[in-house]
């Protein structure tokens, strides 16, 4: 039984330490990917360009724009979850900015 357990679990037990390190790294990569809206902005600009050059029609534009807006909202939500700054929404002058 003991031997069997070892054999069965070996592939899982073995790389645990390594896996944890990798997970941390993945976590960081994933987090960056989840919270970066640069590629979404680029997609939106590219979409507008396609409409301008006549590659897509208006209906197609509207459909794809809706998808892009959903992605924007998702990124905004993740950024909020990670306590990062978000664009849009209510703002006020930061305390430090009001020194004069």
């Amino acid at each position, binding site marked *: 039984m003991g031997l069997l357990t070892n054999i069965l679990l070996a592939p899982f037990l073995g790389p645990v330490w390594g896996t944890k390190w990798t997970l941390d790294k993945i976590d960081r990569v994933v987090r960056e990917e989840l919270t970066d809206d640069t590629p979404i902005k*680029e997609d*939106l*600009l*590219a979409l*507008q*360009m*396609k409409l*301008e*050059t006549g590659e897509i029609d208006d209906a197609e*534009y509207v459909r794809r*724009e809706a998808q892009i*807006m959903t992605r*924007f*909202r*998702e990124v*905004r*939500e993740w950024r*909020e979850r990670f306590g990062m*700054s*978000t*664009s*849009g*929404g*209510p*703002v*006020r*002058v*930061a*305390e*430090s*900015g*009001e*020194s*004069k």
Partner: protein
Amino acid sequence: MTAAESAAAAAEPSPVEGKYVYCIIRNDRSKEFGEIGIGSGSRVYTVSFKDLAAVVSDTPIVIYDPTRENVLAHEFVNETVMREFTLIPMSFGTVFRSENDVLALLRSTYQAFTDVLEKMQDKIEFGLKILWDRDKVVAAIERENDEIRRLKDEITRNAASSTYFARMQLGRLVEAAMEEASNRYVADIHEQLKDVSVASRSNKVIGDRMILNAAFLVDRRDEKSFDERVKAISLQYEDLLTFKYTGPWPPYNFVNIKLKLEKAI
């Protein structure tokens, strides 16, 4: 506010009235710009502090998605204001909770706004995007470049025996010639627009057909000359390039004031 809440708020406007800020102008009396605000076409008016004014409209506290409709509404207000004033555009979606918060912005950034308005006095922006037709440019390169033409002829003549290496060599030469051509066109266009513009800025190109995505800052006095020059250049390159010319815009690409704003919960 989470995105979910913002969606809910959009469906059912919250009673709390915020101020959507479009731009900052120099004006010391109150001014109305009509019912052209973002969202539902609400009244656009000014909130003044000394000789500065923020152009605003009332809005529920929501996050505006950068949809075409919303972005156009934002731009349309700025275009309207621009007919009479030099303006500093605010970034899309900037919402303050109250008039007092808008006044705090004007007060704390008074000097920077004043300086930039001074610099931007009577300046407008034009956008110029240039796309090329790859096939036409390749054809032009083959006409002009002896080495490429010779190599291509050779490969075509000896289709069966021509080596992989020769084809690779041709591909590489064409690629390099295209990059050289793109740089040459862009440099020439910049050179021709130099004396009719105050400044220019190149942005990242969008898609694989674009070779230039630039903004030009132009003095209102030179608007006509700039216009004519762009038209002349587009005629010159008619066979190779497509010009996407837009404006006049507020100086979006030439104003960079880092506002110290924080999220208002």
